[in-house]
């Protein structure tokens, strides 16, 4: 390697061609020039192109039709023969009577008896849940799950499939699951007679919704946690390959709805979803995602609108990172699972329970064929219709474009900073050459150094004139932002240990505690402002550097989230990026206030409120005031639930907001407050 000056441009080009972008100074300079000159245009272009492209993916010609990757599934190859011997209607009656008997409890005993009568290995799991945040004043809540194992005839119990359902008492506000119970019993009776099972089938009825399911899974995999003690599971089968959760009310079924979203935005393998859809179609049962059926003419404008709506609904519920059903907890254990929910309708054509049973029979016979765990098909996808999918390869480029809007701005700012610095350097260079100091001998230098250190000390004492620039002006702000994140993360536990003495509800404590912390965050720019010589406090720092770093950090956060939960990343990116890109301190008051208002609209607290408002809008409400009140209540409730999920299920949602979203937002909030 030899350094040399090159005078012949032709020769330079020749060499450059081999050197690539990173070491080719000329091309690099060109790119840098383009970025620094047109960064605003480029950002806007990238953002608009990205969002349009992403939304356009819902249009049928732009996405792909689902297909089976896993050949072993052989969906629908066999004739489904489930015609129940049991009188289903009578069973529905009987179960409802049992529910009537004990209104506040679920009929576990009855379920266990039924399982035993059918000849399953029946066990009852006793577990206790200690709610965090003093929700139950330190008392643990007991619960029981009932499960029966049908041992496979053709294999030793090394693998199993789960058919599960939540037990719900009469007074529960959730729709009843009588249909699930009846179907489960009828199917268990039918499955037992068949010789072809190669995997154990576990029939599982869980209590306390997702808590019960988590307790069972913890127990099955022998995981103990601080809050859930699953007790001993007396009976076990092999490793669980797949699970199907049933939420079927009673016999007035209109169509079936598939719920896929799991904890932390994990989705089941697309093959499993395909399998359910395919078997429903085979039995002529209408199937939907998020209650949206497929549109008959998907290539029309209305068809596009319909798929877009489906996609948005899917992404909205995906973004929350909360499981939509009990199936969502299986994903964490590398078990593919979906929930089938029955949508009821009083009038019109009904699907019989037997037909639903045949769908489930088909699914289980396919799962029975599996040779290895689901691994072939996609795990990262978005569904705009039941039979169409947008894979990670399709949605990442537009998402990357949206993020590129922020990155381009960051690079442009970085270039601006580095040119500014090099200008400063050249200034100082010219100064030194003017003074014509000859520094040859070491002794001379040493003396000068002594002088220099003196001046250095003086510099430190002198008021910070140069404190406009440099990393040191920005570091404290970044540190404070993250510190606030840490406070928010540990806050709820702290305030709830104090709350019992104040006689305030847990929801209120958590909400107002966080609100107080958030107000402290809002005041952060004021508190860190330094007093300069003039009497008023002024906040001065290198805002360009902070903005550049903030934008890079933001892109990093968004990409990291996108790897796990593209929907959340998409919604965050779409709303945050335009505002953060335009944020800059300015002297004009109107602009400054507009920016502040825009940023306030995007702050995590308002984000959560808007999110809960949109979710409330899907339900019933009277008038806008009622809507606001209801969404406020929902927000408080949701906040506690999110924190609860963190402790009980290991949800990351709260952590992501505390350590990623809030600090980024705070950085930009301080940028607006920077005094020029």
């Amino acid at each position, binding site marked *: 390697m030899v*350094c040399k000056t090159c005078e012949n441009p032709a020769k330079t080009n020749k060499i450059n061609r081999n050197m690539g972008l990173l070491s080719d100074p000329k091309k690099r300079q060109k790119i840098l020039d383009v970025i620094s000159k047109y960064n605003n245009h480029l950002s806007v272009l990238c953002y608009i192109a990205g969002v349009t492209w992403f939304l356009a993916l819902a249009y049928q010609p732009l996405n792909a039709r689902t297909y089976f990757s896993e050949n072993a599934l052989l969906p629908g190859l066999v004739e489904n023969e489930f015609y129940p011997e049991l009188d289903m209607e009578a069973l529905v009656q009987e179960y409802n009577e049992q529910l009537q008997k004990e209104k506040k409890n679920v009929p576990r005993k009855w379920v266990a008896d039924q399982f035993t009568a059918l000849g399953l290995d029946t066990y009852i799991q006793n577990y206790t849940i200690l709610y965090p945040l003093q929700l139950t004043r330190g008392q643990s809540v007991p619960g029981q799950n009932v499960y029966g194992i049908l041992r496979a005839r053709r294999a030793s119990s090394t693998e199993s499939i789960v058919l599960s359902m939540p037990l719900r008492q009469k007074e529960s506000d959730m729709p009843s699951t009588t249909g699930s119970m009846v179907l489960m019993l009828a199917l268990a009776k039918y499955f037992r007679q068949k010789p072809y099972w190669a995997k154990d089938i576990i029939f599982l009825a869980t209590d306390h919704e997702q808590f019960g399911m988590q307790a069972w899974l913890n127990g099955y995999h022998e995981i103990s946690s601080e809050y859930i003690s699953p007790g001993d599971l007396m009976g076990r089968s092999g490793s669980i390959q797949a699970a199907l959760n049933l939420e079927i009310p009673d016999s007035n079924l209109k169509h079936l709805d598939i719920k896929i979203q799991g904890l932390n935005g994990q989705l089941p393998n697309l093959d499993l979803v395909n399998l359910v859809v395919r078997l429903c179609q085979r039995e002529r049962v209408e199937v939907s995602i998020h209650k949206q059926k497929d549109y008959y003419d998907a290539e029309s404008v209305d068809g596009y609108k319909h798929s877009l709506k489906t996609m948005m609904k899917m992404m909205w519920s995906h973004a929350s990172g909360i499981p939509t059903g009990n199936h969502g907890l299986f994903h964490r254990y590398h078990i593919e699972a979906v929930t089938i929910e029955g949508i009821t309708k009083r009038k019109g054509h009904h699907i019989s329970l037997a037909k639903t049973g045949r769908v489930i029979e088909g699914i289980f016979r396919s799962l029975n064929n599996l040779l290895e765990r689901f691994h072939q098909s996609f795990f990262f996808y978005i569904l705009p219709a039941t039979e169409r999918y947008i894979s990670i390869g399709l949605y990442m480029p537009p998402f990357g474009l949206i993020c590129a809007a922020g990155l381009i701005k960051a690079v442009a700012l970085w270039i601006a900073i580095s040119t500014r610095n090099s200008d400063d350097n050249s200034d100082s260079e010219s100064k030194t050459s003017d003074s014509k100091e000859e520094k040859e001998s070491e002794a001379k230098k040493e003396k000068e150094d002594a002088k220099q250190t003196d001046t250095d000390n003086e510099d*430190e004492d002198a008021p910070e004139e140069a404190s406009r620039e440099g990393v040191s002006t920005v570091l404290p702000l970044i540190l404070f932002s993250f510190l606030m994140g840490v406070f928010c993360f540990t806050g709820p536990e702290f305030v709830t240990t104090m709350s019992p003495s104040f006689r305030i509800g847990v929801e209120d404590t958590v909400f107002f505690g966080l609100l107080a912390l958030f107000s402290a965050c809002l005041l952060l720019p004021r508190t860190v402002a330094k007093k300069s010589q003039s009497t008023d406090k002024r906040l001065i720092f290198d805002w360009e550097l902070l903005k550049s770093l903030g934008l890079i950090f933001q892109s990093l956060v968004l990409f*990291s989230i996108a*790897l796990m939960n593209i929907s959340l990343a998409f919604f965050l990116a779409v709303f945050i990026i335009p505002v953060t890109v335009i944020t800059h301190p300015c002297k004009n008051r109107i602009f400054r206030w507009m920016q502040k208002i825009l940023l306030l609209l995007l702050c995590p607290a308002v984000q959560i409120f808007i999110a809960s408002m949109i979710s409330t809008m899907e339900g019933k409400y009277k008038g806008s005031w009622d809507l606001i009140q209801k969404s406020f209540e929902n927000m408080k409730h949701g906040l506690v639930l999110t924190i609860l999920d963190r402790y009980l299920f290991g949800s990351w949602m709260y952590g992501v907001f505390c350590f990623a979203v809030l600090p980024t937002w705070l950085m930009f909030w301080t940028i607006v407050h920077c005094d020029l």
Partner: protein
Amino acid sequence: MSSYPLIFCTVSGIIIRLALFRTSLPDWISLQPEVSTPLTSWERAMEGIALKEYMISPYAGDLFHETPLVLRILGFMTSFSDNTILLMFVGLDALCLILMVKIANLYGGYLLKKQAKEVKRYATDCDTLIIKTEDLRIIQFYVIVAFSLNPYSIAACLAKSTAVFNNLSILFIFYFMLKENEYLCYLFIAMSAYLSIYPITLCVPAAIFFMQSSKFRKNKISDTEMSYTDSPALFSYCRTVGLCVVMVAALIGFSAFLEGSWSFISSTYGFILMVPDLTPNMGVFWYFFTEMFEHFRMFFICVFQINVVIYTVPLSVKLKEHPVFLMYILVSLICIFKSYPSYSDVGLMLSLLPLWRYAFEYMRNSFVVACMYICTTVFGPILYHLWIYAGSANANFYFATSLAFSTAQIFLITDLLYAYLRREFDLENGFKHLIREDGTKKQVILD
């Protein structure tokens, strides 16, 4: 620059390590493949100690790969309570820090001496490039910051990675070399080589360095006049290499005496060289060899292992006048290409990086490299989680990040190399020749 920031950074580094030991972070970090490799994992070390207590040779199985001397040191450490062990690890890090500060000081002195020697051949207009004492004091500060607040070093400390012994001995090499303490320097080269084989290449820069210093002491000649190939020089090289090899042999022999058998050779050095454990890590070996047909395995192992050390030859020809820099580059290359790299090595490499701060302004890719480092460091654990725990991603995702991480490191090293040479070039030729007649700047290219 006053000493308060230095003390503040040191203390905050120690406090951060101690405080993070109280959280649940160490449990998680010690499971991360980037931090604890089969060679440096604390759990495996415990396994080895447990086996030894039951009078079973820890090398009989396939779990333990530390050298016998480290086994004894670890055995001594584990005789204390858990909290004391944590304190010991923080103490070892503090020792590293002290060594680094000393190295920074010594290196500053060395630089000034070297500069005084060479100043005659510098161009007249390159005043701004001349290093002054206060620059050196800043170097010291940056070294402290780069080590005590370095996330990679902190992670390695939290995971109780046993790579800290290797790092210490490499730091001792730098320290004794700059102190011109020949025999101790050789001893620690031998020690490092004993611990992880690859640092044996470091005897090349050491040989050059001590040859230079002995010649300089005798004849007072400057670098340019110095011959690197005359017979005294060759004799000096042979002496260094010979001494290092003898010391390594002595250490291995001593270990065999302690162990009572030679079985440890295959499960320590054999393990490093043959790469039987293909657990994912930040390196390039595992992915390649999982895909490899058994038939070609031996050949490609040779290729990959030669790749680690082959750069020693061209680099020592090119950088013969700068043996300390050569040594740093070699340490970094070993850290990138070794068979089981970990964050501990990265931490060492990045902490010593500020020593070359005076060349930083010539670096061209620092922004890109910094972004790559940050991104790959964040994406690594996420993709590992998605692959291993969630089962939704696969090995390719993780390998992509580890490859990007290695690329970032290579970019950093090549960029540093370029910057260093470019600065030397400017020192010799000055700035004037860079400006064309019409006033525009000429481009300098690397050929």
